[in-house]
């Protein structure tokens, strides 16, 4: 499987955009030509931009009646051959979970952009939170894998949305961009390149579309209208898509393969960033907007001679176990600032051999540097 380089349709160079706008541009750059969505604060700007841009590039846009219809239409379009996406926030993300499970089990490439807000429930619609991290992985019933990326800048809303499409196509898996209100509404200057690297789903006539002996565990994906007589179903199925709702071997094999497909390709999928950890006693592990604050704290304290470093998680699922293990070996204690009650801290505890101190905050606001500095002082 190889990628190709394509020209972007947006003029290359510097642009001043919001995170939500940049995500739309990243999607278009990746080749997304179908959007079905529903308005929800604080993500609606992405949909509004896609409505205009898709028309410009000859794509299809539709505002659906609810989030369930939106993600369902995205999956239907994906099987008709489209790179498809929808943007939402917490409440919409919750509604989409059943369909996300469908996409995972049928191995349908699709991208879901979750611009997280303060929850639970309706919460504070215009305020920030990171409360959907666990939901991204475990939101639907059963055992499946997803890929979830965590952008920390408007540039990354562009880059990681583009990456999300590429990963989704390569691994035939629903991929989330776990953004938040802070990043979504932030405006920064970003650089749009002249060309971007784009991956397309594997093609092969005659399938089988749901089974493979290949190394990467990813079967080819024919689409509707090619005469392949596809059998796409959310029931347990064999390699050709025949429903096999009685056979324990088939169920075990399918569940195993869709999970292993992502787990064994973790090295290619996972991205993390290490700032000063080699030379640190304390480590911060953070992601998204909070990682910006964390890096600021690290740089400020280093100037004062404090040996602190940062592990930034650019990928949240599959979880960067190895990077966390390594960090745990380098430092004596780890602090995890996040805008929830310790969702990622809990995962970190599984793999980190040193002490992990969660620093959760759920007040609808971003974590300020002072709060992290306070916590570091206490140690």
């Amino acid at each position, binding site marked *: 499987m190889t990628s190709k380089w394509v020209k972007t349709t947006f003029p290359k160079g510097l642009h001043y955009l919001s995170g939500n706008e940049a995500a739309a541009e990243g999607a278009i750059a990746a080749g997304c030509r179908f959007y079905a969505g529903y308005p929800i604060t604080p993500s609606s700007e992405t949909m509004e931009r896609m409505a205009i841009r898709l028309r410009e590039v000859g794509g299809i846009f539709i505002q659906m009646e609810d989030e369930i219809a939106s993600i369902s239409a995205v999956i239907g379009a994906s099987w008709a051959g489209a790179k498809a996406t929808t943007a939402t926030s917490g409440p919409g993300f919750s509604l989409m979970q059943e369909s996300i499970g469908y996409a995972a089990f049928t191995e349908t490439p699709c991208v879901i952009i979750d611009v997280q807000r303060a929850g639970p429930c309706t919460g504070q619609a215009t305020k920030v939170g990171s409360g959907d991290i666990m939901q991204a992985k475990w939101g639907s019933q059963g055992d499946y894998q997803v890929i979830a990326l965590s952008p920390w800048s408007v540039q990354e809303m562009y880059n990681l949305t583009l990456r999300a499409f590429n990963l989704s196509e390569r691994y035939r898996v629903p991929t989330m961009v776990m953004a938040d209100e802070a990043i979504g509404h932030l405006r920064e200057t970003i650089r749009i390149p002249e060309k971007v690297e784009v991956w397309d789903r594997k093609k092969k006539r005659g399938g089988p579309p749901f089974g493979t002996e290949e190394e990467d565990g990813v079967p080819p994906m024919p689409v509707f*209208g090619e005469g392949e007589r596809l059998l*796409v179903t959310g029931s347990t199925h064999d390699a050709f898509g025949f429903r096999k709702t009685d056979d324990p071997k088939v169920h075990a094999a399918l569940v195993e393969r869709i999970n292993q497909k992502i787990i064994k390709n973790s090295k290619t999928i996972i991205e993390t960033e290490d700032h000063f950890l080699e030379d640190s006693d304390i480590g911060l592990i953070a992601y998204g907007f909070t990682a910006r604050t964390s890096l600021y704290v690290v740089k400020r304290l280093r100037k004062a001679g404090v040996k602190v470093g940062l592990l930034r998680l650019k990928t949240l699922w599959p979880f960067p176990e190895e990077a966390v293990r390594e960090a745990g070996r380098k430092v004596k204690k780890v602090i995890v600032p996040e805008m929830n009650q310790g969702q990622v801290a809990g995962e970190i505890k599984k793999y980190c051999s040193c002490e992990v101190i969660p620093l959760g905050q759920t007040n609808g606001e971003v974590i300020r540097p002072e709060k992290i500095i306070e916590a570091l002082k206490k140690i």
Partner: protein
Amino acid sequence: MVRAMEKYIRPGVKTTPFCPGCGHGILMGLILRAIDELRMDMKKMLFVSGIGCAAWIPSPHFNGDTLHTLHGRALAFATGAKLYNSDLCVMVISGDGDISSIGGNHLIHAARRDIDLKVICANNMIYGMTGGQVASTTPKGSKTTTTAEGNPYRPFDLCKLVEAAGATYVARYAVTQPVALVNSIKKALLHVGFSFIEVLSPCPTQFGRRNRLDRPEEMIQDLIRRCILEEEAKGLTEEELAERIITGEFLTCQK
């Protein structure tokens, strides 16, 4: 089914899963007959279904692209596929509970948008696959596993619902009206816009057995007796009309 229809059945498929006496097998054959009479190319068709017995009509039996989706969501999936690839002739085949209960919201919006989908709603007035619970189409007073005292609520008139929502071809027939039904399906296939055909299909196992129509042939005879055309309805008293089912083509709009 005549041998000529075999080309529309997926190789390897030998039997249907339907109960003895189920109307869905008849409906399956009539859909294929309509496709055959129009000489349609199954390669250009997409069959989308939800969850339930009727959803198993196209999947895996039909020898074309099939999309077996989530309960109630067939119309939303179909909308995505059709909008992205308008060359596909998209037919949605699913049950009454799937399409009008859990799928109700998607039904009225797909009709409102007049998206070119051919919807065959197999109405057996019950949730058959899950064992006989009451549905949005179950007649008032009927006994089901969740309405032992008789269904307290009235059912939808699906055709009126869909017409009000914006569909541009609306019809209702029973599997006991095969000639009219095949012609209606052909019309829907050729219609450009949202077509909806409610097909009354008996479920002796879950509905009939609990409502004094124990044997499949009793349900068939009951349908034959009760299904009338709009013209025939004119001469009847209110009492006579109460237990009749009005069938026919209710709406045909040209674009």
